[in-house]
């Protein structure tokens, strides 16, 4: 990514808790790393994270506050790149890809 922004978003621990099981943790850490915003995010999911507010705050930061403004998303399987501009990824497929 060439431009990353960090916003301030209200912390809702319950919401973050419910999002964690939906994530692929290693990919999240890798992405945060690539953006230079990994900070203290552990490489593995902390057990019993529901009560760990510190951990939840870190996840909240990466999930809701760090935003890629200019950059791209890359498909790990095909290598196809989806550009991100003004914070909006362009996921439109070409005729032959659909």
């Amino acid at each position, binding site marked *: 990514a060439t431009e990353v922004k960090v916003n301030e978003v209200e912390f809702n621990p319950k919401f973050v808790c419910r999002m964690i099981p939906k994530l692929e943790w290693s990919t999240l850490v890798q992405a945060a790393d690539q953006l230079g915003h990994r900070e203290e995010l552990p490489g593995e999911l902390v057990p019993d994270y529901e009560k760990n507010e510190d951990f939840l705050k870190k996840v909240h930061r990466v999930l809701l506050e760090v935003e890629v403004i200019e950059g791209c998303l890359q498909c790990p399987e095909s290598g196809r790149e989806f550009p991100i501009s003004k914070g909006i*990824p362009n*996921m439109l497929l070409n*005729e032959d890809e659909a």
Partner: protein
Amino acid sequence: MASSCRRPEHTGPPDVFYNEEEAKKYSQNSRMIEIQTQMSERAVELLNLPEGQACYLLDVGCGSGLSGDYLTEEGHHWVGVDISTAMLDVALDREVQGDLLLGDMGQGMPFRPGTFDGCISISALQWLCNADKRSHSPPKRLYTFFSTLYSSLARGCRAVFQLYPENSEQLELITSQAMRAGFTGGMVVDYPNSSKAKKFFLCMFTGGTGVLPKGLGSETSDRTVANQVQYSGQRCRFNNMKGKSAKKGRDWIMEKKERRRRQGKEVRPDTKYTGRQRRPHF
């Protein structure tokens, strides 16, 4: 010109129709804002989300974020997908809180399975029913959309689509592809007797039993004018778009008798002979 105003999807593809000028017009029109907000409110109501909980929702065809703003107001986080850059630019200008994606719903929803707690779509689904390119096959695009959406939703969640169906064939096409993708549910029609206020909400469930909510403006369930179409494997008879039964069939006769009873006139009781086909000599 009149017909294209009522059915913008007939003038061309959505990313062409919603150009910068149209996007600006759309988002500044106070009547449009009011209607869209009302429909978003009703759609979220139909989503039946758990009380007091911030959810992660998908807004398909989010446009300039009119519906998204309502989601934010309700305390939810959302992701919006739209095909028109112009509309999304307006959304950026309006500083919507949701995350935006430039995408074509007919190409599929690019999300990990079980991501969302619900999905709404306001006035967008009918755009999928027209083939804008020679390579487009609306049924295939509809199926691609519904199947990927189905997987993007967590189990036991709902997707509510407010749409303007052109005719019953279109409605059937949409519901059949949704069913194929695994959704259950049906159509909820609000104010079926008012051509102005009438609104269609396609209410779909992912897994589990769902009781289809009642449409607004409906009276007792004895009325023969169906305001909910529970989609089963059977063919249902659709009324014409004004919500009245076609022809002089039994439905029409029953409705007419009801109307006259309400007007206080004397009406023959309904029996098994009401509206029965008579022998030709009548």
